[in-house]
C-alpha cells in the first residue's frame, strides 16, 4: 500500500515509538500506560502462536486500567530480580494511514541487564501498532509485540 504520509507525521510517529522505549528503559513505568488510549489493546505474543493462529499471549491488556494494574503489581506484588531493559527500535514503517488510524510496523531488540552486569538478548521481534490522535497527541490504540524469542529467560515482568 502506498505511503500517503507527510514527513511531519512520520517524524511524529517515530517520536512516539522512541518516547515509549525511553519511558520503559528509564524505569518510568508509571507513565507507560499514558502512551495508550483509554480503550486499547496491548499484547505480547509468541510468534509461534501467532503464525498458527493461536490466541495465547504472555501479557494481554484490553484497557488502560489493566496496564495500570500491571504497573501496580510489578511495583507492589511481584517478586523478581533487579533488571533493566534497553530497547533498540529499528525501521519503523507506516503501512497505511486512512486519515484516522495509522498502521505502523517496526522491529525491536530488547537487552536485559541484571545484577551480574551482563547484557543479554532478552527478546526480539516486531511491533505491530495502530496509532490514533487523541486530544492532538498520537497514542497507541493497539500495540502488539510479536516476539521471535520463544525461550523467555526466567520470567517477563516489565512490558516490552
Amino acid at each position: 500500500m502506498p505511503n500517503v504520509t507527510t514527513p511531519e507525521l512520520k517524524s511524529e510517529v517515530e517520536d512516539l515509538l522512541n518516547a515509549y522505549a525511553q519511558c520503559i528503559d528509564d524505569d518510568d513505568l508509571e507513565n507507560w500506560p499514558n502512551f495508550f488510549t483509554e480503550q486499547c489493546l496491548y499484547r505480547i505474543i509468541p510468534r509461534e502462536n501467532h503464525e498458527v493462529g493461536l490466541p495465547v499471549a504472555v501479557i494481554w491488556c484490553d484497557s488502560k486500567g489493566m496496564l495500570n494494574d500491571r504497573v501496580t503489581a510489578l511495583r507492589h506484588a511481584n517478586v523478581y530480580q533487579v533488571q533493566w531493559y534497553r530497547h533498540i527500535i529499528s525501521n519503523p514503517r507506516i503501512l497505511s494511514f486512512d486519515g484516522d488510524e495509522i498502521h505502523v510496523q517496526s522491529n525491536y531488540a530488547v537487552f536485559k541487564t541484571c545484577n551480574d552486569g551482563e547484557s543479554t538478548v532478552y527478546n526480539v521481534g516486531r511491533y505491530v501498532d495502530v496509532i490514533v490522535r487523541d486530544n492532538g497527541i498520537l497514542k497507541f490504540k493497539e500495540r502488539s509485540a510479536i516476539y521471535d524469542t520463544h525461550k523467555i529467560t526466567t520470567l517477563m515482568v516489565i512490558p516490552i
Partner: protein
Amino acid sequence: MSTPEHLKWPADAGCTAVPYSVFNSEEVYELEQEKIYNGKTWNFLAAEAEIPDKGSFKSTYIGDTPVVVTRGQDDEIYAWVNRCAHRGAEICRERHGKSEDGVYTCVYHQWAYDAKGDLRGVPFQRGLAGKGGMPKDFDKKQHGLRTVRVVNYHGVVFGTFSDDTPDIESYMGEDVSHHLKRIMNRPIEILGTTRQYIAGNWKFYSENTKDPYHASLLHLFHATFGLYRSSQKGESIVNNDFHSILWASSGSEDKVALDDMKKDKLRTLQTGEYELHDPSLLKGQQEFDDGVTLVILSLFPSLVMQQIQNTLAFRQILPKGKDAFELVWTYFGYKDDSEELRNIRLKQFNLIGPGGLISMEDGESTELCQKAIVRDGSRTNVIQMAGKEPVGDDHLVTEGLIRGLWKGYQDLMGF
C-alpha cells in the same frame, strides 16, 4: 550403573532434609536421566489434542532424550526416540506438524520410517547397477527406531522407556487420576503455548509445585486478592509418594486461620491498599460444581496440570542440565466453550505463564535457590512444616508433599 557411594544420602536426613549437592551435581544429573527418566516413570508427551489427525506429530523430550509422538494411519498414538537407526541423525526437525503420507524420512540418507518407528525404506539397499547396497543379511526389522511405551489417558499422552512401569492409573494413584479426569472431563481445545527457560535445578520446581506453604507468602498478588490463601478451605494430598494434589476454594475462608495469619504481620496482606483499576481480570465463571477454584496436580517427574480460576494448562518440566530446565506451558479450554468463557480464559492467562501475575515468581524462586547452593553441598535444607512425615493433610499449611517427593526420589535413585 549403581549409585556411587559418595552420592549417598546423609544417613539421618530421611525426607526432611535434602543435601544441596543433589541440586548441583553433574553426576546426580546423569544418574537421574538413567534412573528416573529412563526408569519406571510415566512422562508427559502431549495432549491428544496436539496430534489430532492421522500423520500428526509433535517433537518433545523424556528428560533430555529427544522423542517424537505420532498418530499413525491406524489412528493409534506412538512414540520413538528422535534418532535415526542408521548413523544417528535427528529425524523429525519440526516442533509439530503433519506427515501427509505417514512417512518420516531422515534427511541424511533418506532412510524412511513409519509412525510406529519401523524402518520402511533404505535407499540403494540393493545397490545401483549391482554395485554397493546393504549386505544380504541386513534385516530392516532389526533396525527400527528405539520405541517408547505410550498411553493415552483421558486425552493426555504419556510415555515410558521401561516395560516395568506400572499401568498409568496405578502409577498416578487415585486422587491424581480423579483430578486429571475432573479437568479432562470433555474434549479440550489448545489455545497456545509459551516457553520459559529457568536457570535452576528442575527439582526446585518440583518442590515448588508441591508447596502450599509458599503460595500465600511468595505470591503477593495471589494472596492480596484472596485468590488463594493458606487459610482457605483446601487439601494437600500425596499419591505414591511423589505425585500430589493441591486444591482450594477461594470462596471459603476460615476466619480463625485468617486472624492467625494477620497476627504474623506478613507483607502478604495488602488488602485495601491495593485495588484493580480494571476488575474484569478476575471476573471469572464458576465452571466446576465442586466450587474448587485452584488445583495443582503434580505428576512426577515431568507434568504439572493446573486449574486456577478459569485458567487451564499443562506445564511440562524439561531438565536441561543440573542448573537449568525449560518449562513449557500449554494453555487450553474446552471445545464447547462459549466465546465469552473463551475470552475469560484468554484474559485470565495474565495470571499464569512466564508473565503470570501469580506464577512468575515460581521460576524466580528456583533461580534464587540455585544461586545460593553452589557451595556447602553436604549441608541440607529443612522440610518440617506440619511434621516430618511424607503425607498430605486436610489443610494447606504443610510441606508433607515435598517430603513425599524426596522419599520417592531416594527410592528411585537408590540413594
